[in-house]
């Protein structure tokens, strides 16, 4: 048997070199056992990226198995392919997924975020789906004030937003929604979770398997350069001061090239020339070759001399580990090579036949006649070590919170000015959110609503996670993330279909962090079961730490739902003066983990609200039934900032600024508790006044508490939100609230420099 050679200037394999690759002595033993010999430098590099957490999920796999992944609509399950695929009826399906680019964005925010978008879009069209829209979930340190770290946070925030805009706008995909939070916990380690959804017919589902012995393997797309070397391994380490030196591990994106690649691949997938297709994302050529071979139960041999390159003198190690963007690997049906060549010529894209599918199960890498690596593909792709990490529960806060009272007339504007609650128009105005002519509900409502014309289907999508709750109680926080996502969809008139998640946590070697991961996963799994929304895939991002410690656990949920009829599309803002304003759900009194405590009293503490799934589901079903009967003019869920913020937003987040007259009567609650508690399972709706009584009877009959809060008041420059309760009344001018809420982020960003 021939042994792969080492080409100069490959270094000797020493314990130091092994350690630098993040490979433990045990893992090195395992590698030697698989190979039956010592690896050379290229092979060591290949193992290091494939066995990184980013590619192998070696720390999280046992936890991920707890997710429900099956259901009648699931056409492609989580983990089978690049993205899960869900049936939406009439022969159509959607592929969607969320992925993180946290570490690259911390080092180089513009390119880090841009390439995150590029990567997730490739995951979707690799499935044969035409991408139709994007969402994102972003988290940064505080952007208010003048401290040097705040300036850095603003720079990261601005860079990430323009990076996402750069890539999404250029490629022509609308970015139609998402969430942005600001909290000290993300200082130096922002979270950039990007989501893409694509549409396809059932029979168009493409597979990433190297099928058919003797089939040629094509490399298409951008040339390989030295950018993004070993990015997957970089993403699987904690960020430190020295991380800045890892900037070469951040890739550079070219959305124009990706647009061409997208069109060319979709055109090619309409032919019968493709046996398998796989994007080159994390771990680039390495991952795409060994994963396609492993899925196909075959082997793949490639010749690096044939790979289109951007630079001269690249070593096999560099070519195999490069994470240059906008590249794909295509397994072509033998004899149909010309079809591939013609299409890629048409789109002016580099393409090359670089290898062949064989039957020996090996991933064999040649440099001309010289073999430089030979590894059993399946063991490399699927037999990374699995670790069951130690867990240690973090002590839960049980002390009751002593509530400092506050001057209520100021508290509401202060909450509305908090960048996490304030309007995100500064962000979404920079994203083209209308291209593809399908955005039925503009950003800023409870969920994004998009009509997919080719399928004649209306989808709603949202992304949610309240990480304060998760930091105080990761299980309950994760349960609430699912409940809130489902609630946002219900408020838009949608029935939830499925979930993608992005698990952002700290270093899993620290038992407390791993406990948070486990609790969160179990919480998400409970939620997914309760709402019949299987997890179709997602991403795990560990090692999110800064010198102050791990980030608050942030299991971001992306949920997609279907709106059966155009007339069911519902938005969050009031529509007409005189309409009755109702609360579905309890008034509530849970203040733990609330934004009121955080923003007004600078405290992240207490027991976060509890969610009762049965109650929550009943609420959603009841709301949807009212929507279907045509009774609901607006619906807005109560989340951060409670009823006070929800009522203010309902007045002012639409095209007209309405007032509202609210009277709670006697509640016996302190005003800050009444207005700002964050008890779950609550929705503020407006209905025609003459229907209010019937709606309340209907809701109560269904078992959902309902109460009349007041009425919508004429939209005029003087319109006011007045809230009376327990003998007191507060009045806010809506124009002033709107100014505060709408301009808060721009004020931080534009006037600070």
């Amino acid at each position, binding site marked *: 048997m021939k042994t792969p050679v080492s080409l100069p200037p490959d270094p000797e394999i020493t314990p130091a070199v092994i350690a630098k690759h993040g490979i433990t002595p045990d893992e090195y033993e395992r590698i030697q056992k698989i190979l039956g010999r010592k690896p050379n430098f290229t092979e060591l590099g290949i193992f290091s990226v494939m066995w990184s957490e980013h590619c192998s999920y070696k720390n999280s796999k046992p936890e991920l198995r707890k997710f429900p992944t099956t259901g009648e609509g699931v056409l492609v399950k989580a983990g089978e392919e690049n993205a899960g695929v869900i049936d939406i009826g009439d022969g159509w399906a959607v592929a969607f997924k969320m992925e993180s680019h946290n570490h690259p964005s911390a080092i180089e925010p513009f390119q880090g975020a841009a390439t995150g978008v590029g990567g997730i879009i490739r995951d979707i069209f690799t499935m044969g789906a035409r991408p139709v829209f994007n969402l994102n979930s972003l988290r940064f340190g505080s952007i208010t004030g003048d401290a040097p770290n705040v300036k850095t946070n603003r720079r990261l925030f601005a860079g990430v937003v*323009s990076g996402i*805009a750069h890539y999404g*706008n*250029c*490629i*022509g995909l609308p970015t139609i929604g998402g969430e942005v939070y600001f909290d000290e916990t993300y200082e130096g380690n922002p979270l950039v979770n990007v989501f893409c959804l694509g549409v396809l017919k059932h029979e168009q589902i493409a597979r990433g398997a190297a099928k058919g012995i003797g089939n040629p393997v094509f490399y298409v797309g951008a040339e390989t350069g030295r950018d993004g070397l070993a990015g997957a391994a970089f993403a699987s380490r904690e960020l430190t001061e020295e991380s800045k030196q890892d900037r070469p591990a951040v890739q550079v994106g*070219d*959305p*124009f*090239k990706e*647009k*061409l690649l997208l069109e060319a691949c979709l055109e090619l997938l309409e032919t019968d020339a493709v046996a398998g297709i796989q994007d080159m994302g994390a771990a680039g050529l390495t991952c795409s070759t060994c994963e396609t071979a492993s899925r196909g139960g075959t082997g793949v041999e490639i010749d690096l001399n044939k790979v289109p390159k951007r630079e001269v003198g690249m070593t096999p190690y560099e070519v195999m580990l490069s994470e240059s963007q906008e590249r794909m690997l295509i397994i072509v049906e033998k004899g149909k090579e010309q079809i591939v060549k013609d299409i890629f010529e*048409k*789109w*002016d894209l580099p393409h090359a036949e670089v290898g062949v599918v064989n039957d020996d199960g090996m991933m064999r890498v040649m440099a001309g006649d010289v073999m430089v690596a030979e590894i059993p593909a399946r063991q490399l792709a699927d037999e990374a070590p699995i670790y069951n990490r130690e867990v240690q529960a973090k002590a839960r806060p049980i002390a009751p919170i002593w509530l400092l009272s506050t001057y209520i007339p100021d508290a509401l504007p202060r909450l509305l000015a908090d960048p996490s609650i304030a309007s995100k128009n500064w962000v*979404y*105005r*920079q*994203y*083209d*959110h*209308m*291209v*593809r*002519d*399908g*955005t*039925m509900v*503009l950003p800023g409502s409870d969920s994004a609503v998009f*009509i997919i*014309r080719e399928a004649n289907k209306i989808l709603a999508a949202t992304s949610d996670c309240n990480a304060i709750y998760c930091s105080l109680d990761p299980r309950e926080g994760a349960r609430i993330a699912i409940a809130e996502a489902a609630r946002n969809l219900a408020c838009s008139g949608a029935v939830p279909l499925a979930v993608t998640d992005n698990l952002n946590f700290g270093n899993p070697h620290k038992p407390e962090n791993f406990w948070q991961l486990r609790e969160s996963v179990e919480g998400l799994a409970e939620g997914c079961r309760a709402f019949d929304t299987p997890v179709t895939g997602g991403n795990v991002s560990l090692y999110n730490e800064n010198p102050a410690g791990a980030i608050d656990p942030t299991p971001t949920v992306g949920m997609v739902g279907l709106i059966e009829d*155009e007339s069911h599309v519902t938005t969050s803002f009031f529509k007409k003066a005189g309409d009755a304003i109702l609360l579905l759900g309890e008034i509530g009194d849970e203040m733990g983990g609330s934004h009121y405590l955080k923003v007004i009293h600078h405290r992240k503490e207490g027991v976060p609200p509890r969610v009762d799934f049965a109650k929550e589901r009943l609420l959603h079903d009841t709301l949807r039934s009212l929507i279907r009967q045509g009774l609901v003019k607006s619906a807005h869920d109560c989340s951060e900032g409670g009823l006070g913020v929800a009522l203010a937003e309902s007045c002012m987040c639409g095209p007209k600024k309405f007032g509202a007259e609210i009277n709670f009567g006697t509640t016996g609650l302190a005003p800050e508790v009444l207005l700002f508690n964050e008890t779950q399972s609550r929705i503020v709706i407006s209905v025609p006044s003459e229907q209010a009584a019937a709606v309340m009877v209907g809701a109560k009959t269904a078992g959902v508490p309902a109460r009349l809060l007041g009425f919508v008041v004429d939209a005029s420059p003087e319109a006011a939100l007045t809230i009376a309760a327990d003998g007191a009344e507060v009045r806010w001018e809506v124009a002033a609230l709107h100014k505060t809420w709408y301009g808060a982020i721009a004020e931080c960003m534009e006037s600070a420099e």
Partner: protein
Amino acid sequence: MKAAVIRFPGSNCDQDCHYALQDVFGIETDYVWHKDTSIKGYDLVVLPGGFSYGDYLRCGAIARFSPIMKAVTDYAQNGGILIGICNGFQVLTESRLLPGALVRNRSLHFICEHRFLRVEATDNPFLNASTPGTVLNIPIAHGEGNYTADEATLAELTANRQILVRYCDADGCVSDASNPNGSLQNIAGICNATRNVFGLMPHPERACEERLGSEDGNIIFQSILNHLGVSAVA
């Protein structure tokens, strides 16, 4: 009646324009590839929005050298009805089919939002279905839509009533406050001296259905139909 939507590499509003023309207005519409060299047989040619060639140089600066642009120029010079939307407008100024230039928005940000436009002149194939002073609600989405021209050009545009739409507020008031991008005199769209070539930054094809928030873009497509109908009778 037949329409052509030119596809440059990086065009991304091509499908939306095709949808508005073919599905909303029932006009037979073809895509024409940028490497083609002929556009014979079309009554309307659309240069759609997007990022032709990635707009990595100046917007539209490379697209003007695409093989199809020779045919497009001939078509326009022979009086053919040509409309450039967003990136298409940029291609038209780069090709000198329209005067002036489009530079970075003054905020330096890409801006996507609904905007009001005041119709300035209706004696042209693009707005004959409207009346001067009408306010249209049509979205914009661009990073480089700040129209600029030298004084002589501006004087000529004004004298010939080539400024067809300006950014305004809901009441039709044109002011700096209603200018999203710093555009000279709030210019959102202009036509050429012979009034057969129209370039505008806003996207009428995104305002062609009530469910998308506005139908005001239809005024433009309807006007073109009116115009072609008239000339067909003549």
